[in-house]
């Protein structure tokens, strides 16, 4: 019984933090002003970079989609850290008595939701701009969810590492981009199968994405309290 009660509190606290972060983002309209235009810009710039060669772009769509998600994740996590750093919010979070693991889960969930919204907007974007077409909707959806979870957990963990540092934006990029390389590789392969551009078993790559998210979630849940207290 204690386990279920603890789990109920954990989920409740995580939902509270996630809804708080999402409400702040909604009221600040930061997605309209930052994440979405940034994602659209990256898609367009990739088009220029590939010399507007449509067959090449169509073939490269899975990798470009994963890359765009990664870049948007950096921007979204930076914003998430900034929200928590302002007005001593981290200290208040610590004093709230909430389990740090629940706070970490909530912040990760909020970032994951924002990344998924961007992905939902990106897919019509690559269909129109690159001429890509989805062959397996369940696989693309599962890849998107797994990649968003992986990026969100790694990003929230590293966001807490650099919180309160003057150069946090630059350092976050230096840390998050290489750490997220497995997501980039696995998501590119799984999206490739979903878009029908490469003949691989996309579901096994989704498994790798979920394993990456699970490792980062476990690590984040274990150390988030120490990071809140000491950084």
């Amino acid at each position, binding site marked *: 019984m204690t386990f279920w009660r603890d789990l109920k509190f954990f989920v409740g606290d995580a939902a509270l933090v996630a809804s708080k972060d999402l409400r702040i983002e909604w009221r600040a309209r930061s997605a309209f002003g930052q994440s979405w235009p940034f994602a659209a810009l990256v898609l367009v710039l990739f088009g220029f970079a590939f010399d507007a060669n449509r067959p090449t772009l169509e073939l490269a769509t899975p990798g470009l989609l994963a890359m765009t998600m990664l870049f948007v994740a950096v921007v979204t996590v930076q914003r998430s850290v900034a929200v928590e750093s302002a007005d001593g919010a981290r200290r208040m979070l610590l004093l709230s008595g909430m389990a740090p693991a629940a706070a970490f889960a909530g912040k990760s969930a909020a970032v994951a939701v924002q990344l998924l919204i961007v992905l939902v907007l990106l897919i019509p974007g690559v269909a129109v701009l690159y001429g890509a077409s989805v062959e397996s909707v369940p696989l693309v959806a599962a890849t998107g969810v797994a990649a968003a979870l992986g990026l969100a957990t790694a990003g929230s963990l590293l966001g807490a*590492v*650099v919180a309160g540092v003057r150069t946090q934006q630059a350092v976050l990029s230096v*840390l998050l981009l290489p*750490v997220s390389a*497995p997501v980039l590789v696995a998501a590119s392969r799984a999206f490739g199968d979903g878009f029908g551009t490469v003949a691989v078993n996309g579901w096994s790559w989704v498994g790798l994405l979920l394993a990456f998210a699970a490792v980062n979630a476990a*690590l984040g849940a274990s150390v988030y309290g120490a990071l809140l207290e*000491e950084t």
Partner: protein
Amino acid sequence: MTSESADAEVAEPRITGYLGGPARISTRFTFWLGVSTLIGFAAVAALGLLAAPADDVQGDAVRIIFVHVPSALGAYAAFAVTAAGSLMWLWRRSLWWDTAAHAAAEVGVLLCGLTLVTGMLWGRPTWGTYWEWGDVRLVTTLILFLVMVGYLSVRALGGDSASVATRAAVVGLIGAVNIPIVNRSVTWWANRTLHQESSLTDGKLEDLTLFTLVLAFVVCAMAILWMMIHRFRVGWLERQISDRDLSEALRARRAEVRQ
């Protein structure tokens, strides 16, 4: 609280001996370890360049194995120490382990960089290219290198030592997750690599080549130990000097207030 008792609280920290950490950088042991390492390097160079036979397929290019493989394994070992030190900092708040983790990370980044450079130099005559994106071990080693460079960036962020240690420890543990991926990548993605299976276990090496390679491992381990001990001692003394500077500043400020 009287000013005398306050002075007593910020008494000058003593540069302590081995129980409280090292008192100096060099000792008789590290001196002889360094000398032995240099002799070992000379022996490996002589055996590897002059005595060991060239490979039937790769020719003289195979001699890079005596630097490339020991430095790769040395980098993994150093990063494993970083992970262990990071874990001990988070678990026990042990400054000793945190300093050891930092020392091991610096040595590991050096060796990992050497592994990448020697790998590229070996790849050119063997594979016909310095860099092959399709090779999983090459790419994962580069990622490991970049993550650990990120660890050193976090170390350089500044702030109080506990905060820096906690931030770095988390990055050190994330980097450790990459070690088994890099090491096993050749097996897991057998169709996505140009790297061969383990040279030591496949039994295809000539006796003298095998002997030289094992000697190179031993000498590389000695070099790592020498570098880590010295870097650890420098780090430990840096901490003590930093604490002493703070104590002296506090004492000077209190003396000003008293006048």
